[in-house]
């Protein structure tokens, strides 16, 4: 059990990153810690605080029936940051369960806007609003179907903009599941040819979706006593936070406070892994309940029960949080896909939902580049080798950073922008 001293963490946090020419200076060695805390402020790339980021919404399916409790999600929300003159345009795709305006997308938007790009941010196809407003089937997780949904969204948004702005070239990028999405969107673009993406960048994508969700599901085992003891885990976390809060000068629980609290609480590796598992479980529960209501599959909510605006989903909420992503995969996703394609086997579906299913395409696709970390926690041992093997020099693998922990680190941001600028 590795306990990182609060003191060391504080030192790392406060010291300026002393840059050297070729060493990689991202300061966090523990992959779980990196995944949870990201990049300490003094190591982050300098990005403009204010960019003209505008929030928009768009109807994707005119005839869509939205379940009553989801009335607010009929339109798909997205954001745009547009340059004044002619410029290249980049689409950003968020990761599992994340919104178009999540912190990672906003930071990427800042970086690309600063580098002279028009930027359009789209939520993950696993995000509630996307499932409700923009998923044709209402059942997310299928690499090709998700890519078709995203492509449709991109076309619609571009349809609203094409008379207003001038675009030189199109680009696409995404992180985590969004990276996998970006690969399939680029692949789809070869036949659709609406955008003819000049470049695509996959940031920390999974290789095989099923491996990654299994790894993330298992992280909940790090809760002492397992998920049955989650309320106790939560209470303990709140108690620790309260102790810091009582002695803090601030009365706001914002980002700054949480960083300080984190240093003081000083969680060990098991606790960090548990936190990652909890966060993933919440995304997974949100997604499964949403899709269940969209299709009336009868996964958690009985088929013949209709939720109204005031109906309480509290019991379904409890059930949803007890089910894993792999449960969804086997009990909902596979039967749903099999109904459309009766000869589909379980292992075939698992193999299809992976970058390896389009390996030949990816090997020859000079336009697609990858940015990844050697210690990414969503990859099984050895899976990282897929990238240099298939992408060769087009795969940039950093020695550490966990899952997306180094996305805001200066070297990474520079690389991200350079891939599209060269």
């Amino acid at each position: 059990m590795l306990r990182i001293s609060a003191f060391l963490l504080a030192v790392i946090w406060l010291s300026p990153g002393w840059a050297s020419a070729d060493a990689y200076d991202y300061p966090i060695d523990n992959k779980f810690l990196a995944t949870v805390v990201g990049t300490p402020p003094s190591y982050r790339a300098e990005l403009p605080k204010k960019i003209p980021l505008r929030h928009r919404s768009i109807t994707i399916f005119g005839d869509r029936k939205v379940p009553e409790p989801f009335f607010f999600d009929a339109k798909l929300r997205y954001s745009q940051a547009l340059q004044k003159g002619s410029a290249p345009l980049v689409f950003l795709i968020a990761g599992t369960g994340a919104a178009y305006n999540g912190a990672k997308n906003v930071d990427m938007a800042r970086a690309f806007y600063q580098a002279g790009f028009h930027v359009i941010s789209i939520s993950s196809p696993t995000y509630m609003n996307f499932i409700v407003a923009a998923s044709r089937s209402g059942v997310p997780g299928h690499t090709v179907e998700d890519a078709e949904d995203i492509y449709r969204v991109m076309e619609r948004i571009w349809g609203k903009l094409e008379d207003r702005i001038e675009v030189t070239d199109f680009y696409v990028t995404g992180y985590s599941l969004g990276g996998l999405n970006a690969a399939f969107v680029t692949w789809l673009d070869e036949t659709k040819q609406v955008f003819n993406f000049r470049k695509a960048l996959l940031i920390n994508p999974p290789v095989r979706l099923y491996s990654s969700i299994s790894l993330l599901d298992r992280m909940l085992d790090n809760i002492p006593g397992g998920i049955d003891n989650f309320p106790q885990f939560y209470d303990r976390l709140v108690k620790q936070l309260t102790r810091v809060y009582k002695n803090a000068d601030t009365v706001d629980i914002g980002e700054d406070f949480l960083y300080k609290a984190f240093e003081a609480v000083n969680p060990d590796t098991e606790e960090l892994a548990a936190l990652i598992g909890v966060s993933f479980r919440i995304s997974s529960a949100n997604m499964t309940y949403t899709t269940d209501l969209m299709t009336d599959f009868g996964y958690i909510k009985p088929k013949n029960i209709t939720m109204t605006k005031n109906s309480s989903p509290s019991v379904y909420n409890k059930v949803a949080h007890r089910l894993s992503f792999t449960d969804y995969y086997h009990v909902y996703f596979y039967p749903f896909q099999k109904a459309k394609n009766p000869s589909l086997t379980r292992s075939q579906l698992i193999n299809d939902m992976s970058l390896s299913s389009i390996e030949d395409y990816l090997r020859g696709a000079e336009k697609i580049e990858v940015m990844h970390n050697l210690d990414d926690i969503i990859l099984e041992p050895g899976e990282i080798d897929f990238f240099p093997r298939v992408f060769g020099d087009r795969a940039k693998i950093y020695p550490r950073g966990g899952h997306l922990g180094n996305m805001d680190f200066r070297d990474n941001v520079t690389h991200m922008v350079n891939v599209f600028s060269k």
Partner: protein
Amino acid sequence: MKTAYIQLQRYILLLVAVLALGACSTAPEQQGDAIIEPSFSADTVLDNDLTYLSDGISDPWEGFNRSMYRFNYRFDKYLFLPVVNGYKTITPDFLEKGIHNFFLNLGDINTFFNSILQLNGTKTVQTTGRFLVNTTAGLLGFIDVATMVDIPKHNEDFGQTLGYWGVNNGPYLVLPLLGPSNVRDGVGRGVDWAAYTAVIDELEMKDGEEWALTIMQAIDSRANVGFRYYETGTPFEYDWVKLLYTTKRKMDIEK
């Protein structure tokens, strides 16, 4: 003082009226006689011997609360946020900050009273110090001089005072316009408002001016809260807000 009393009366009346409406059903609609078993039902997945995260929070008026939550969303979306965004656009950043400080300083009036009621000498003294320094050197509170000279800021309200003396939350309650609360904190808000109005009355402002101050305060406080209804990406947002509100208040009472 008279206005304060009338305000408190009105507030309590509103609270009672609001609760009288609390009979909206939270039951879903069922087609057919028998429920078609889902893949994972509560019976098979949940364990009666276990507690779940939100079990401890009483919410007997959930139907009403959910309606009010939706009402607040609409009010926010169609009236409040457009006004707030307009305010943010036309007001230079330094002025916005100054106005925010001004209202935080006025908020110290309630923190002062409640620090006394909680018999907390340190908080009472520090809050008095903050108020005096900011009201004078800080030009009526526009500049937060007190923080610059390291006098800590506290935040105490009557809900916390009741909590300090052992009063429980009572049922969860979504208040019109004000958002998540519970019976204890709802009553607390009424009492705080009455005390605050009594002090403001001493300034002998005209009615219109008092209203302008209240509206400005509401705009300022909304401008400083990032939360947007129904944009958290979870179909269980109502339950999450309930849990997090209750947790945060527990922490506030302990602080």
